[in-house]
């Protein structure tokens, strides 16, 4: 079988009858068999179930039945989305052996459109991390270079798509957990405006920041998945009923840049690639304007205070009573303390403890309310910025993928790797990451496009123009056999 380059091409081949869903699934399973022992992108695999669903779709197609918009396309889900058929662990010992009694809205929606779930993808435990090294199961390696991380926390999802385990994955982004892995693995992603994709069935890290989103090979794949995944869900109280704004022409668009933030980037190829993208956008008739997010310098403490506080209270649900791990003890609180001591990894404990400190009566006004007020200031910065521009661009990350075990000793240094992605999360704005070439070592680089609420379609149109000139789809490990 000659493997389609992206999801859209796979759909065209399926419709033309030159490929079957069974062939696509077998191809993905073959890659998993050959490479995942080393890449470690997956936590659970449903080979038999996937083959069976593929056969059903092939039969339906043969008999001329109407099929869903993703019929026959294999995909993976980050293992913090609950699924009825497969184990859900959030890469934590706390949920070893857990079987959810219901599926996430997005999982149901995608399967109802005929997409075929291959398995669940690795992540940092409960999505707390930026490298996927904090998974309680095993780390994931970057298919572009196996000595490097795929990013995180949606690192298993990103590695799976880059390695050709299906055509897309759905992950989640709290402070950059989709965008940074997309940049590190040469993929496209969208963290939507708050409310565009349903969060129902997404295991929470920090609910005022958590957003689901797809990881794809091409921008047109991302456009299709945005269309399929969006829509109101009565089970998510923040879910929006609004339509997305129509895409605007690039001609005449005001594209903002953040000069001071760029100066923080020491990796020269990233600055050069960013400048090259600006040239491309100018050539399309966009006007480049300098903007400011004056409070971007406090995004990091603001983010970490809010995440710690929300996570600390949210994680209280893992108490050894209703589901998950329980360590046997004679007394209730001893049981909970032992269960949580053994069930949670180091980073999870760190954030729960830090959050509990911030939430103490004597600290809550200073730290938690303080961070929430700072968040308002950051949101106001965005409102002011979007008076001057229609969207703005930054590098997605300040460096390409780093090596495993490189930053593990210093959790605060690890937190810095989300510098460019945090502000849009705090403001709830939509943000796309798309590739902008590779550096001298052949490592992919990503550019981030941030827009005003509900302007996803315009961001995707601009991303398509960047892809046309700077895209690296042909270099993707999935299309090159010689993975990593």
């Amino acid at each position, binding site marked *: 079988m000659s493997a389609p380059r992206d999801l859209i091409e796979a759909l065209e081949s399926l419709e033309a009858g030159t490929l079957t869903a069974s062939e696509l699934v077998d191809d993905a399973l073959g890659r998993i068999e050959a490479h995942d022992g080393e890449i470690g992108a997956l936590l659970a695999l449903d080979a038999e179930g996937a083959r069976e669903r593929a056969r059903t779709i092939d039969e339906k197609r043969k008999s001329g039945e109407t099929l869903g918009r993703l019929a026959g396309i294999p995909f993976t889900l980050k293992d913090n989305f609950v699924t009825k058929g497969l184990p859900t662990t959030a890469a934590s010992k706390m949920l070893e052996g857990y*079987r959810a*009694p*219901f599926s996430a809205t997005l999982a149901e929606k995608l399967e109802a459109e005929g997409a075929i779930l291959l398995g669940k993808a690795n992540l940092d435990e409960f999505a707390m991390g930026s490298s996927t090294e904090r998974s309680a199961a095993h780390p994931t390696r970057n298919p572009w270079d196996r000595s490097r991380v795929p990013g995180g926390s949606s690192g298993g999802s990103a590695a799976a798509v880059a390695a050709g385990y299906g055509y897309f994955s759905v992950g989640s982004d709290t402070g950059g957990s989709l965008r940074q892995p997309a940049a590190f693995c040469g993929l496209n992603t969208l963290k939507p*405006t*708050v*409310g565009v994709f349903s969060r129902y069935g997404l295991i929470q890290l920090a609910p*005022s920041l958590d957003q689901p989103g797809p990881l794809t090979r091409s921008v047109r794949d991302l456009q299709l998945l945005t269309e399929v995944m969006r829509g*109101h869900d009565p089970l998510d*109280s*923040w879910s*929006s*009923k*609004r339509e997305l704004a129509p895409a605007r022409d690039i001609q005449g668009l005001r594209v903002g840049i953040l000069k001071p933030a760029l100066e923080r980037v020491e990796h020269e190829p990233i600055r050069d690639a960013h400048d090259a993208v600006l040239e491309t956008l100018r050539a399309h008739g966009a006007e480049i304007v300098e903007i400011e997010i004056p*409070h971007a310098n*406090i995004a990091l*403490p603001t983010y*970490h205070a809010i995440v*710690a506080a929300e996570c600390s209270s949210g994680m*209280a649900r893992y*108490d050894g*009573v*209703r*589901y*998950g*791990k329980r360590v046997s*003890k*004679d*007394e*209730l*609180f*001893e*049981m*909970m*303390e*032992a269960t*949580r*001591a053994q069930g*949670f990894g180091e980073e999870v*404990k*760190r954030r729960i*403890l*830090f959050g*509990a400190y*911030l939430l*103490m009566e004597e600290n809550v006004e*200073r*730290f938690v*309310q*303080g*961070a*929430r*007020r*700072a*968040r*308002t*200031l950051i949101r106001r910065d965005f409102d002011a910025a979007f008076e001057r521009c229609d969207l703005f661009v930054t590098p997605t990350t300040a460096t390409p993928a780093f090596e495993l075990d490189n930053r593990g000793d210093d*959790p*605060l240094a690890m937190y810095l790797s989300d510098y460019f992605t945090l502000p849009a999360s705090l403001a*709830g704005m939509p943000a796309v990451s798309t590739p902008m070439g590779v550096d001298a070592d052949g490592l992919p680089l990503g550019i981030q496009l941030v827009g005003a*609420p509900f302007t996803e379609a315009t961001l995707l149109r601009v991303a398509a123009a960047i892809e046309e000139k700077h895209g690296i789809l042909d270099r993707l490990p999935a299309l090159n056999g010689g993975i990593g």
Partner: protein
Amino acid sequence: MSSLPITREQILRVAELSRIALTEEEIEQYARELTHFVDMLSVLDTIDKDGVPPTVTLTFDPIAQRDDKLEPSLPRDEALAMGPVTSDGGFAVPKILGGEG
């Protein structure tokens, strides 16, 4: 801009609130790291936030309410299926301090 170091007693109090048993090494490690963390956050003290309301929820539309009508919910046996210990149609827990279980 260095805060007072977090003490052993403070970490133990936080661990109690969090219901996490800590080892001696963890107590030392987290006390040290929490001191750094509070240092990192203290920059938020320096910005002018007077009269700025806190952002708690973040939506661009009014929060949608569902109709107040009865709908099927998770059957009891399914809800209990993942409970580590269940009995008499409920989740079973060890005795609470001073109780008889």
